[in-house]
């Protein structure tokens, strides 16, 4: 009877609607991405900048578990709450932020036929779930009751309207070509990678992705040299870990979407891995997304930060027309090719 119960629990955990959001490609895999990506980012940057980077925590592997040490440190650090802060919002917004970065994993297909909750409109759903984070950042910036956080919040508001529109339009340009809003159907329909079919949309999506996660050259919201840490100035301890982790998680979610829209998703499938779990068949998706992430964080060692008005100009005057152009491009392709 016990084995039956355990068996049922194991089956329950391994079923797509739990496995996808919580294990792969969801929370557990995302945590792994977070831990290794930040380490890889620091190592890559260090290589460019002629230094070692993380080194002493597990020296034989080049400080590979540095981030675990950092996480433990954050866990035991006192989370200081400013006296004048709106305490509930201040404490709960980071948690909600993290939650909204994890929920999309339930709708992102990880392998052929493997998705937590199969909905027809997974593409707009995932994008709009990640679009819920900027309002939460605004909430934190207001709740912290600090001049620097408020400025950061205002910046986030400006940036949000500048990138969100182009992000959605670029994604829909691809969707309109395939005639579906379902991520799994888009991947299935992709015989030629989307980046070759519609490079404009891919470019716009990638740049807006950087803006969304505020990565260089668009790390304006957290502009350390002017506003300390932007909306996150007052955070410490585990709450700080959550807000910082959320931006990387968001980047991970969007790079999964990027791979599914433009880089052929889980193709080529590796059927051998299906014996472990059906989700691992589509491991190519994870690998491609990881490479996209590595490229995105590598930009840190090449670029400086754009000014706010310059980033808005890029968002509205360059990316927005380009996004519209990518829709026209898709429609023109449809006319020429007569449908996918």
């Amino acid at each position, binding site marked *: 009877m016990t084995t039956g119960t355990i068996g049922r629990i194991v089956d329950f955990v391994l079923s797509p609607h739990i496995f996808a959001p919580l294990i792969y490609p969801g929370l557990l895999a995302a945590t792994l991405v977070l831990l290794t990506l930040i380490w890889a980012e620091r190592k890559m*940057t260090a290589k*460019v*900048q*002629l*230094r070692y980077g993380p080194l002493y925590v597990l020296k034989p592997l080049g400080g590979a578990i540095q981030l675990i040490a950092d996480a433990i440190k954050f866990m035991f650090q006192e989370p200081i709450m400013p006296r004048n802060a709106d305490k509930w919002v201040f404490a709960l917004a980071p948690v909600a932020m993290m939650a909204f970065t994890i929920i999309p994993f339930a709708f992102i297909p990880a392998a052929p036929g493997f998705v937590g909750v199969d909905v027809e409109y997974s593409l707009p759903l995932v994008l709009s779930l990640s679009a819920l984070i900027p309002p939460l950042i605004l909430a934190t910036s207001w709740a912290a009751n600090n*001049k*620097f956080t408020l*400025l950061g919040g205002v910046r986030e508001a400006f940036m949000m309207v500048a990138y969100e529109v182009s992000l959605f339009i670029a994604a829909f340009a691809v969707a309109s070509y395939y005639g579906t809003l379902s991520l799994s159907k888009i991947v299935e329909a992709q015989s030629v990678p989307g980046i070759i079919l519609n490079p404009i949309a891919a470019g716009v999506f990638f740049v807006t992705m950087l803006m969304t996660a505020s990565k*260089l*050259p668009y*790390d*304006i919201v957290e*502009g*350390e*040299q*002017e506003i*300390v840490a932007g909306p996150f100035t007052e955070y410490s301890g585990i709450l700080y870990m959550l807000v910082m982790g959320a931006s990387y998680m968001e980047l991970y979610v969007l790079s999964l979407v990027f791979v599914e829209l433009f880089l052929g998703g889980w193709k080529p499938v590796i059927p051998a891995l299906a014996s472990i779990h059906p989700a691992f068949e589509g491991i190519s998706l994870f690998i491609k997304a990881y490479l996209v992430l590595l490229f995105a964080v590598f930009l*840190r*060692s*090449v*670029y*400086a*930060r*754009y*000014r*706010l*008005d*310059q980033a808005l100009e890029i968002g509205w005057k360059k990316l927005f027309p380009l996004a519209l152009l990518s829709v026209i491009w898709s429609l023109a392709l449809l006319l020429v090719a007569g449908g996918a």
Partner: protein
Amino acid sequence: MTSQGSSEPRASPYFWYRLMGRDEEGYDVYELFIGPQHPASGHMRIIVRLDGDIIVDAEPDIGYVHRTMEKLAEGREYIKNIPLFERATIIDAANITWGYVRAVEQLLGLEAPPRAEYLRTLLAEINRIASHLYGFGIAGIMLNHSTMFMWAFGDREVWVQLAEDLTGARLTHSYIIPGGVRRNLPQDFREKALKAIRYMEKRLQDYERIFVKNPVIIARYVDVGVIKADEAKRLGIVGPNLRAAGVRYDARIAEKYGAYPELEFEIPVREEGDAMARLLVRIEEIRQSMSIIKQILDKIPDGPIFHEKYYRMLPPKLKEFVESTGRLKLPGAFIRLKPEPGEAVARVEMGHGEVFYHIVSDGSIKPYRVRVITPAFRNVVLYRYLTRGARFMDLPAIYGSIDYFPPEGDR
């Protein structure tokens, strides 16, 4: 709500402005205190008043690292003030002490031997390069370009090492003393210096690729923080900031001190007066300094490195030591240098600009008064004039471009 508050209409359209603060003149501004506890303020505070994203006024509030150097100098013997003043600009120790030493030499009626003047010039130029690289790195990190920061600080190490080879100390050299210098040129210095120059020339091209010609840097620096020549002259700006505004002024030319009259070099000048011009002037100055170092290594005359008058005071055994090692031991009487009563002024071109010393002697072993006006102190006013009307995010760009060094400004 107090009665005062309720007397005003609550739904005033200025409610949000009031919430954000308003200055005395009724201007609706958002006042921001940047520093001294801020990741990018340095040892100072900048009080910024913002109208939206536009800076209405930025007020540099300095003095957080004031060490009463001028007053301390009155309580120390002349020679002991050298280690004191070099701590004002520890990244440019040779240049800032050279001004003091020149003034003391005038009071003493001394002149350093030619070889000593060449060695002083050599260290001054090494320090100038290191100082510019330091400023370069700060300019990089102010725009969050961490690669430029790390590269410039890493390559500065080359010049700091070179200075150590020459003087025995990385930063606080105390190399330039009244009457000469403390050490002779080491045997293998020429090769090391030429190697450093070759390396730096290669690196400057790398800098150009990753920073100077980086589209983001161009967007952030061109036409940002513009100051024109007449305005710069009126405000008394010095150094590369002045030359980037189109004024050809350099104390090395104006004062003709050290070995500079015998060396060939150019004073880079640009007309634009923006942050990019200031950056490019500094890069060109690094190139010129390297050319000066090469010339010094070729031209340096043989001879003593210390004035005969004091060298004679050394006991024979110490003389032997100085001859064999090239390291000067100061005679005991040197601590009690006693200039005639009088005044002396001296100017020297540092990496940051011109430093000015005015020493008053009352004939005792300690100076009666030492007045030092550092280039950073003269340039700090730029915060106010360059930032007015700029975007808030231009503030770090301007900060980085004017190469302000707070301990130097505060003394």
